[in-house]
């Protein structure tokens, strides 16, 4: 028998996951179209809200306190109109709202990947190979994490393009505040990984991908809650609070990683997964 090159189990798993995922039209549409629709929807909502409610009404009702507090945290040039201030405030919410994108993409990978292994009966022969549980889990996690992060960044680009199309390009330097960057480069990967771990844990009990995706609620609701709380002015995610949120996410990731590794133990899979 000819010896081959040293095996790379993680890359092997990733290659297979992508091959399977991108051969399924439903998966492709879910992973690409839904994030773009979420992004466009945000732009449309902002445009319609300002168009029909008007800046004054918004400031006098739900947004006054929130925008005021927000402006104390993040500097904007003097002389901006109220409408421009509201626009910067709205546009700046995208990185938090956009966390739904890595949630959905990572969850899609996690649930389809695990449930498909269960349905096809491939886990037992797979676990009979020399692959380590950690390598298998890492390969699966990275195969979901990378598209989740890429789609998040792509949609961020689409969002910025949307701002330009709306004729508000001069506001972009003020929209790209530190909250934006922390969200993109810290929260997006952390949320992707956390969602993936939740997906793996939920899938171990689920019989099909749809049941597994019900656990999306567990992570989608807190993400939406963060945005709603900030828009209503109830909580402002200052840099300190974002740092704290990141720390909590890191902690949750560690807890979920341990849970996923336990759930993904060979004995649990072979004797407990039905």
């Amino acid at each position, binding site marked *: 028998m000819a010896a081959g090159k040293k095996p790379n189990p993680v890359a092997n798993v990733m290659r297979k996951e992508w091959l399977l995922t991108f*051969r399924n039209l439903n998966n492709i549409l879910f992973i690409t179209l839904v994030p773009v629709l979420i992004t466009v929807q945000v732009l449309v909502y902002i445009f319609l809200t300002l168009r029909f409610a008007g800046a004054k009404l918004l400031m006098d009702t739900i947004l006054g306190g929130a925008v005021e507090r927000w402006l104390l945290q993040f500097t904007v040039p003097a002389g901006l109109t109220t409408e421009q201030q509201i626009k910067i405030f709205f546009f700046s919410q995208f990185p938090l709202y956009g966390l739904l994108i890595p949630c959905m993409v990572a969850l899609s990978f996690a649930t389809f990947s695990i449930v498909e292994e269960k349905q096809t009966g491939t886990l037992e022969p797979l676990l009979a190979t020399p692959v380590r549980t950690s390598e298998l889990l890492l390969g699966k996690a990275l195969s979901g994490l990378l598209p989740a992060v890429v789609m998040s960044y792509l949609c961020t680009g689409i969002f910025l393009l949307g701002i330009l199309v709306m004729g508000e390009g001069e506001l972009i330097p003020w929209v790209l505040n530190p909250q934006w960057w922390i969200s993109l480069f810290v929260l997006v990967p952390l949320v992707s990984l956390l969602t993936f771990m939740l997906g793996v844990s939920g899938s171990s009990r689920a019989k099909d991908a749809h049941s597994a995706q019900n656990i999306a609620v567990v992570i989608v609701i807190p993400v939406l809650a963060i945005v709603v709380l900030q828009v209503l002015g109830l909580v402002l995610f200052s840099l300190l609070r974002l740092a704290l949120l990141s720390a909590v996410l890191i902690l949750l990731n560690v807890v979920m990683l341990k849970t996923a590794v336990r759930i993904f133990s060979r004995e649990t899979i072979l004797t407990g997964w039905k």
Partner: protein
Amino acid sequence: MGNTIEASGLTKRFGDLVAVEDLSLSVERGEILGFLGPNGGGKTTTTRILAGMIAPSSGHAQVLGLRTDREPERLHSRIGLLTETPGFYGRMTALENLLYFAGFYDIDGRQQAERYLRLMGLWERKDERVSGFSKGMLQKLALARALVHEPDVLFLDEPTAGLDPEASREVRELIEESKEKGHTIFLCTHNLEEAEQLCDRIALIKTRLLVTDTVKNLKTKAFRQEVVVRLKSADERLAGAVQSLGFVRTVSLDGSTLLIEIENPKKNSPALVKHIVEEGGNILSVAERSRSLEDVYLRLINREGENGRR
């Protein structure tokens, strides 16, 4: 010849359920051991323990000198496992599936995949998605997967289950070829004819290991040796005359046939025949009563059931 598989006092519990109890066995290099038993008797659990997939609750096992519960990854690089269900990724082709599994071993995956796909007669269909494969083709592909890294030990769980006779024969031939190459084979099967045909020894399990021996010895142990004498006609007088012989234990009359349990049939059959002829018997045929592995299996399993009820 050294033992490739050594198990000592293996017990596996799942909560209150004892799946395997105090199992000890050994399998020599190049041997095919048939592992038989009823559903839920502990065959799959034992196979999983020996293949390093799950750890025993107590006891230990070594395969190829490696402790199955301590070095599973090293063990997995040297064993092949054919699971009861030949699971594959339906949206991937036969070649892609095989390359994926081969990709976990330190081998030239492409060369080995081609070799085994050709051997299994699947090379022409390598680029077809396996979702369109028949059960026989999937089973052959699963066997290719189990063999692709040329393991020293093969664990085969129901390799011919659900296959048509032609595919079953092909799979059996492949198992025999593997044995000829020196592979040690641990074969779980419900197909007793297949076990009798392929296996050097049989192990019978019903939670505990009931017996391990060659098929021939099992038959001798499970049943007394009987000679079947077909006559033109037979009656109670002739049966009584046969019973009077010293080496005859029991005689039963079934129409014109005498079923005679005797000691050492090879030695005593000529004297038996001579005596029957002298008593006026008109013999049509004489044969040792043959017992199948199925008879032995049922006798031993039922005996165990009766012991368990006592």
